[in-house]
């Protein structure tokens, strides 16, 4: 139920709907919860849950995770 799947926004269909590519499958997704559709979102990754994008996925992920890993390992 709380499973959310990352998808890449590939096109904007109308003011609140986009197409996302989830592992090669195209799906329509509602963008109301992230402020509506806007062409600047194309190419970005979003977390999709029950047909709605619930958040955008940050591009700087790996750096932040590496820092957390370093912190936790260094202290051991």
């Amino acid at each position: 139920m709380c499973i959310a799947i990352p998808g890449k926004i590939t096109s904007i269909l109308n003011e609140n709907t986009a197409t996302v590519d989830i592992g090669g499958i195209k799906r329509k997704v509602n963008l109301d919860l992230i402020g509506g559709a806007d062409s600047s979102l194309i190419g970005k990754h979003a977390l999709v849950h029950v047909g709605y994008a619930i958040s955008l996925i940050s591009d700087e992920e790996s750096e932040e995770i590496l820092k957390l890993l370093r912190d936790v390992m260094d202290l051991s």
Partner: protein
Amino acid sequence: MMENIEQKLISRINENATPLRIMHVCGTHERTISKYAIRDIISEDVQLLSGPGCPVCVTPVEDIDFAIELARSGKVITSFGDMMRVPGTTESLFDARSDGYDIRMVYSIDDAIKIAKDNPTLEIVFFGIGFETTAPSNAAALLRGVPENFSILTSHKLMPPAMEILTRDTNLDGFLAPGHVSTIIGTEPYDPISEKGFPIVVTGFEALDVLLGIAMVQNQLETGRSCVENAYPRCVNVEGNLKARELLYEVFKKTDSKWRGIGMIENSGLALKKEFEQFDAVNVHADIYKRLHEKKASESDNVDGKNGLYEECICAEILTARAQPSQCPLFGRRCSPEAPVGPCMVSLEGTCYNWYKYRHNKGI
């Protein structure tokens, strides 16, 4: 390279292991933990407890019974697939569907709205369940406008109040906080809980994420800290999704709510605000609601006293980490995913389901 990091994290956890009870409150965490046998690869000292993180498991039996009664009265019930097989007092939605009642599985509230638009002579009820992750989509849909023949049976739950209760009633040292709930609520709502001395780490859903979450809880305890940390920065930030919360609280307000297997928890649920009561299934179908409650009051059955659970089912203990599925006399015998007796055996996020799927079949 990631495999190597996982190995290092496992060593880090095991080399520093002291008796520790870490609870997660998300069914998807249970899935990752069971699937990758994380309990078996980390030290036995570090116990991973499964909390009430499966939305269909905590949906109160009264709401399931009401949905079934609505279907039996000729309304069309639309629901997420997970909800279909969860046992109510005497049957599940799936059982009622086998009897010919109109119960349809949907992927999203928008599918249910489309059914309502396409069938103006039918009355469609959407069974709205789920935590903070799911509720905003229903708010957004109501704000966009829904047809008159559409209503919602709201049974949404909020996670921080349940965590708060668990810190009082269950023996635990810290939490892995649910990553996807946190995309909406951010990390701040956990502060009051961490301030009581419980480390909290917002955690993602890969094996590496969960291992990192465990190591970070461990690290806080080792260094005598208890705060909220975020191990899922790619999706979660401190303030969460402000837009989603704005829409959510335009439509819903907090209310006391009953959790199956746990009972009433103050301010842990969502009710539709007055402006939206014409879409509240309890109002729209008040006659059916009243009839059901009168009928219930005149009957006594063996499930009511146990919060809607069958006599031998220990889901109440499992949802609060006071027992493990293998301690249930029905586990893997009378109760299996094919024939679930209790709610924890139904969904991909149920603790009994995951133990059955990933452990029982392997003889663990």
